[in-house]
């Protein structure tokens, strides 16, 4: 009984932390004039990835949830106020995510700046490229540092966040985390916020449908025998694209940046699947 209760308690704490942080992120996004659909897609994506991608351990999942929230919140602050300090803050949050999830962190660093509603990103190509490079700078340095210093210190962090689970723990957390009820419960706060704000328009409805489809695909892939987390990430990635596509015309990226965004999305998708297939080979 005790061996089952402890992992359940941990999973419940992880679910609580991630859903609470996703709800906070949703509220921040709404306050910065993101539509309810867009805010729902982003915060829902954060909650899902925390609960399903990360190990079921309380610490790992909570740290990832915190990292997702920090990235989202700093992105929102940068959208509101283009102070250089906010640029540094956003870059640092993206960089620190790589310590927790190296592949996901790199993908997030490439893609997330493109989804921000910053006027400079929507202006001339030279301005958009300048800001994009600026936002990528700190995460790129972190990638370099992690590559150079890939030694005991980084693997120690990895061991702390992804401890090897015993059979009972794995079985129980698999059941508890994959249970649609728990996954659904974790999303309830954001759903509540979404409904409470305003009735969804056509675009928001389309976004919500896409989110539901992607989530269903991701869950189905994760329910499989091998718990294919790479497929999960790949399925969740289009949400970022949806967030970009949902922007109004004046908020959209210039055409060359859109091409870059599509290429980045496609290569991230391929990267996630490639890593996944290698790990299952």
């Amino acid at each position, binding site marked *: 009984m005790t061996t089952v209760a402890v992992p359940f308690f941990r999973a419940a704490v992880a679910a609580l932390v991630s859903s609470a942080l996703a709800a906070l992120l949703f509220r921040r996004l709404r306050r910065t004039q993101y539509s309810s659909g867009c805010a729902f897609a982003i915060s829902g994506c954060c909650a899902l990835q925390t609960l399903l991608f990360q190990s079921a351990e309380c610490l790992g999942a909570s740290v990832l949830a915190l990292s997702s929230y920090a990235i989202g919140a700093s992105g929102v602050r940068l959208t509101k106020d283009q102070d*250089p300090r906010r640029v540094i803050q956003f870059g640092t949050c993206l960089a620190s995510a790589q310590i927790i999830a190296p592949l996901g962190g790199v993908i997030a660093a490439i893609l997330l700046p493109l989804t921000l509603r910053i006027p400079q990103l929507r202006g001339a190509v030279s301005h958009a*490229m300048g800001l994009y490079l600026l936002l990528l700078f700190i995460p790129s340095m972190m990638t370099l540092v992690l590559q150079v210093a890939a030694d005991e210190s980084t693997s120690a962090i990895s061991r702390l966040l992804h401890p090897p689970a015993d059979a009972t723990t794995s079985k129980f957390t698999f059941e508890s985390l994959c249970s649609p009820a728990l996954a659904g419960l974790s999303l309830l706060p954001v759903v509540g916020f979404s409904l409470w704000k305003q009735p969804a328009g056509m675009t928001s409805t389309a976004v919500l449908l896409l989110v539901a489809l992607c989530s269903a695909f991701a869950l189905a892939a994760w329910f499989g025998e091998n718990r294919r987390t790479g497929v999960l990430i790949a399925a969740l990635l289009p949400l970022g694209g949806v967030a970009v596509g949902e922007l109004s015309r004046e908020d959209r990226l210039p055409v060359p940046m859109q091409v870059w965004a599509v290429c980045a999305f496609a290569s991230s998708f391929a990267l996630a699947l490639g890593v996944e297939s290698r790990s299952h080979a």
Partner: protein
Amino acid sequence: MWFDFLLPGLDRLQIPMPLGGTSNHFRVEALRAIHGWDPFNVTEDADIGIRLARLGYRVRTLDSTTFEEATNALGNWLRQRTRWMKGYMQTWLVHMRDPRRLLRHAGLAGFAGFQFFVGGTFLSALLNPLLWVIFALSFFVGFPELGLSRPMSSISGSGLLLGNALFAYLSMLGPYRRGWLELSPYGLLVPIYWLLISVAAYRALWQLVRKPWHWEKTTHGLSRIAPRGSPG
């Protein structure tokens, strides 16, 4: 970067400020109190900033911009930077004649700030090529063969990476603050800047010994928008 980040930072930390640029405003009694400027120093403005701080005057930055023409020809740029480097060397040597007195006048933070921002400017430029050569050699013969321990190689590797990264990032952030984002990517060329500034620093060192009071002129009016041919 200099006017938008470093000088306001020094102002806020109340660290002696090496003045520079084309828009300094003084109260006459303060200039008289420090007995004017040193005509032998080729960056007399930087020297004035330190002397004002030593006498207890406070130098502040104003939220205002005076635009000036940036040098856009390599030879011209090298001459200008050589003069600046030589001036910083002169300023450092003058004020470090009696370090204890400087410490007493400027306080610990002021003393440290002076070492970093005046001494560190030319010292880092002088050491930079040497460190790059050691780093390049380490690829061929390894750090132990160069007589450097593993901790030392880690420290120097981190210093190289962090120092260049920080400087490049600040160089990219400077244009961002002004809304000149198209200039931000040029911040990535910092390693080339360092190479050139080191050339200027060695020229300055040579001149400090051979022609200490020589003022290398910067030719202005070379860019498209400025009136042509006014040396200054």
